[in-house]
């Protein structure tokens, strides 16, 4: 039978008056749930590659094995989000509507830089009840080179060549530091081709799925180029 902690303490207060003032907040309701998972994005000249696993979880439970963390906002940019799924949906809806309005008013789609700034402002507008989202905005800049912007929950952002967010962040980012930048690498070969980088990304997700219980099921990869968007889905560990 489940006895809330505060009720148990009533007995303590009678038997041990010194413990009378201890209260635990563990029964407090929270508006936030971490649906976990991992996303990453890598920018290369001419393209940007965004990937996210498709597992949705809540604590030790799996809610879905087939939930996308990626959302294409314009022809040239994609939002990848880890954190609370409901907030991801709400944020995505807002951005889609706002960017449609931008297109009507300006007769052209918003550039990646514009979307990046818009996302930052929207996140900060909720400074005192934040979107529980850890975002990556990946897209092509005005010269069609891949760029990645990484965000915290309240909208602080910066441009990066690659970024990782989510429950597998620490596991994966260390691998990318080594593979894509050659940090702490004895044999400093940096991958040049798209295929090499795709292989590294797939390996990263497999590694994350091994050690992080919240990452797995499938990895969904979007490759954005000036010619269009390509989508690849590969299976991952299901345990």
């Amino acid at each position, binding site marked *: 039978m489940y006895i809330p902690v505060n009720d148990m303490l009533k007995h303590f207060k009678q038997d041990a008056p010194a413990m009378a003032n201890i209260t635990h907040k563990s029964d407090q309701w929270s508006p936030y749930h971490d649906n976990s998972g991992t996303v990453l994005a890598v920018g290369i000249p001419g393209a940007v590659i965004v990937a996210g696993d498709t597992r949705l979880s809540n604590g030790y439970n799996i809610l879905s094995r087939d939930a996308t963390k990626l959302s294409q906002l314009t022809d040239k940019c994609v939002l990848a989000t880890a954190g609370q799924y409901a907030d991801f949906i709400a944020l995505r*809806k807002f951005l889609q*509507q706002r960017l*449609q*309005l931008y297109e*009507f008013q300006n007769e052209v789609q918003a550039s990646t830089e514009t979307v990046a700034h818009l996302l930052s402002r929207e996140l900060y507008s909720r400074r005192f009840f934040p979107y529980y989202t850890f975002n990556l905005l990946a897209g092509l800049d005005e010269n069609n080179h891949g760029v990645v912007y990484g965000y915290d929950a309240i909208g602080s952002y910066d441009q990066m060549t690659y970024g990782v967010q989510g429950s597998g962040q620490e596991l994966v980012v260390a691998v990318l530091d080594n593979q894509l930048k050659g940090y702490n690498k004895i044999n400093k070969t940096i991958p040049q081709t798209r295929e090499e980088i795709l292989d590294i990304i797939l390996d990263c997700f497999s590694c994350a799925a091994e050690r992080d219980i919240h990452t797995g099921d499938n990895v969904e990869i979007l490759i954005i180029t000036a010619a269009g968007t390509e989508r690849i889905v590969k299976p991952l560990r299901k345990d």
Partner: protein
Amino acid sequence: MLKHLYDTDCVTWSPQGKLFQVEYAMEAVKQGSICLGLKSNDFVVLCSLKRQPSELAGYQEKQFKIDDHMAIAIAGLTADARVLCKYMRTECLEYKYTYESHHPVGRLVFKVAEKSQHKTQSGAKRPYGVGLLVAGIDPNGVHLFETCPSGNYYEYKCQAIGSRSQAARTYFESWFHLFEKSTLEQLILHGLSALKKAIMEDEELNEKNVEVGILGKNQKFIHLNAQELKDYIVKLETFNANTQIQQE
């Protein structure tokens, strides 16, 4: 005529039961350059003639996208059309945000009509001086509506409004029985043929002054580009309306 006694504002009826201000607003629509629309089972096509205020000026756009599944063609005061266009776009965006689906076409036309009617029943307002042809696709099918400054709206199989539109309507009366089963290309050629009937003797259709927009069940609203327009205008020469095929 004693018109001038009863035409000062919208809140005065004439003895014949007319609101002259509203009638005058409809005149503004008739003065605008022609735009027409026609539909088949799968597509709606909007064709308009763009006016050029002078040699030095550009051509006035007549067709505007409201959403992926809806577009309008305007005749009359462009400034008033912009207001209605903005309203329709906002309504579609809000509907999509709330219901994650496209705004039903008839519903939006009704909202526009409500707005227009409101302007005809006040001492301080004037009616909108623009008529819209609203093309849209929703689960109920393929639609073409016309809205008026009076606040009335009608659904059509094909319709033309604006300057010399009667000529185009006469063309439609002869051939509209073919439209349901027409292909997209045939539909466009019928539209352009109707447009051709409505131009002046010394005018000609070219890729600069013609605007064609298409909307389909699996086709988001797009305008034809200059090259496509040129090709269709060339095909127009040999188009036979009766057989709907090119004649040699």
